[in-house]
């Protein structure tokens, strides 16, 4: 009897230990939050008037989403418009996490959707204009998660640059407080967040417990309506820095984010060399699209388009995107 109980102990204990260790490993794998990688993948996007004078017109955060230099950010501070009239983009990164960002690369808008306020940038050259071979890049990047699986009260972490070049990437903790619907995106057009996120973090990244990007914090900055529009430099060349110089609009605290699933469409389009939506430059950012597309003669296409819209809002968004892009190019 004693031998049997000892035998059982010798057999059961190792099995229990192995199971316990395995579950701990699985738990660690599920909470694999690579904070160093996320910090290194977060960049500062500077829109400047031109490469000749380097006058900053707008700024915000961004996130590297591919190793060859694709950056996800907001369109309002990247695409030229009346509030942000700059013609060039500079990407700044922190060499180490205890140093402020340093301007490193030039970039261009490769894909943008003004209605969603999302833009994809691509690094095109070094700061001095010398070309770069994007295929040889090995930049740290983050993965996009399925934002439709995000739930209310989920704890999130927001990364971005909190100010204009004075400090490195910072993190804010927050929770998801709800969702806002729009006609085109059904019930998840916006993710409402509760956190203390400064306006300069717009365009950064919101991450789930697994370190995957689930959203892009978004706030609109305007020179006329922004709570903060600091005058940073002598933009008119009169030797003085005063109210006659252009200010750089910084939005207020952020409480909403665009789901990452919208960015998937932009990424897919960029990889296919397509432009999802490049509306004419308009100072009025439309947060709701203009309704369903109308076709005058191609009546047979309307069911296809409606089918595409449905497919894009479901789990078959990625394969549907390539089909729908083909249809919309007809």
């Amino acid at each position, binding site marked *: 009897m004693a031998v049997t109980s000892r035998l059982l102990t010798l057999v059961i204990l190792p099995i229990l230990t192995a199971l316990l260790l395995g579950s701990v490993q699985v738990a660690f794998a599920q909470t694999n939050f690579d904070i160093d990688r996320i910090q290194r993948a977060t960049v500062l996007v500077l829109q400047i008037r031109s490469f000749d004078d*380097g006058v900053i017109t707008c700024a915000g955060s961004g996130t590297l989403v591919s190793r060859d230099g694709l950056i996800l950010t907001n369109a309002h501070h990247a695409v030229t418009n009346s509030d942000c009239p700059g013609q060039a983009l500079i990407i700044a990164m922190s060499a180490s996490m205890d*140093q402020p960002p340093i301007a490193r690369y030039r970039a261009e808008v490769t894909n943008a959707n003004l209605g969603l306020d999302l833009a994809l940038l691509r690094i095109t050259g*070094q700061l001095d*204009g010398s070309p770069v071979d994007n295929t040889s890049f090995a930049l740290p990047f983050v993965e996009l998660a399925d934002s439709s699986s995000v739930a209310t009260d989920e704890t999130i972490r927001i990364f971005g640059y909190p100010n*204009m*070049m004075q400090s490195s990437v910072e993190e804010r903790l927050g929770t998801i407080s709800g969702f806002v619907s729009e006609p085109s995106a059904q019930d998840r057009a916006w993710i409402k967040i509760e956190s203390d996120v400064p306006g300069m973090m717009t365009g950064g990244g919101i991450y789930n417990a697994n370190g995957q990007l689930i959203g892009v914090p978004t706030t609109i900055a305007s020179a006329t309506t922004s709570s903060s529009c600091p005058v*940073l*430099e002598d933009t008119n060349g009169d030797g003085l820095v005063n109210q006659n110089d252009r200010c750089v609009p910084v939005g207020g605290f952020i409480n909403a984010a665009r789901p990452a699933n919208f960015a998937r469409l932009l990424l897919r389009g960029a990889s296919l060399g397509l432009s999802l939506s490049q509306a004419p430059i308009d100072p009025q950012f439309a947060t709701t699209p203009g309704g369903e597309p109308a076709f005058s003669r191609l009546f047979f296409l309307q069911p296809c388009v409606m089918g595409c819209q449905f497919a894009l809002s479901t789990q078959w968004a990625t394969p549907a995107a390539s089909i729908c892009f083909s249809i919309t190019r007809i």
Partner: protein
Amino acid sequence: MALFGANAAQNRPLTRLQRWAHYLTMLTFGLGLLYGINMLQSLQTATIGYVDVRAGISVRYPVNWLFDDDGSYIFRVRDMTRIGYKTTLQISVRPIGTQSSAEIVLNNLALQRSTQLNQYRTLSITPASPLNDQPAVAMTYLFTTTEVDAALESLPIVVLGRDVLVILRGQAVIITFTSDVATFDQDLAIFDRFLDSLELQ
């Protein structure tokens, strides 16, 4: 006996006069050595003063360096005895907004230089030792240049630079030091003495 006498002469103890003569000789030699070293140091670190009342700057720079103030800077001095890149010290000022920061000015400077200098790269932006009790920020960068004389075949010269920026009375004072990367560490002592002598009014 004679041998004993010669040996006795050699082993004769020193007189007081001889002993003091030895001491005096050694002392004279030591003093002369120190004096010579001091003279050498003085010649190597000799400086000449520069004062700009309008800009509120007073500084001392190495003698025999070429001075000019014709560019977009307050003044610039270069060591023309160097072969290749001429080590340069320069002071310039820029207007700055009250809500701006040293880092923004330095990055703007980097943007402008990147279009003017070959292979320009910013290496770091870090806090520097306070200048005249004002907090300072230093930016280290590098770029390449070539020999001015086209008849001389030479490899591109890598130049290392350091800007120290301090904000004073609504303007950013930028002290620039550039030198061939091969002699940068040695020349840094010149830059440190230059910064120590700088007075901003």
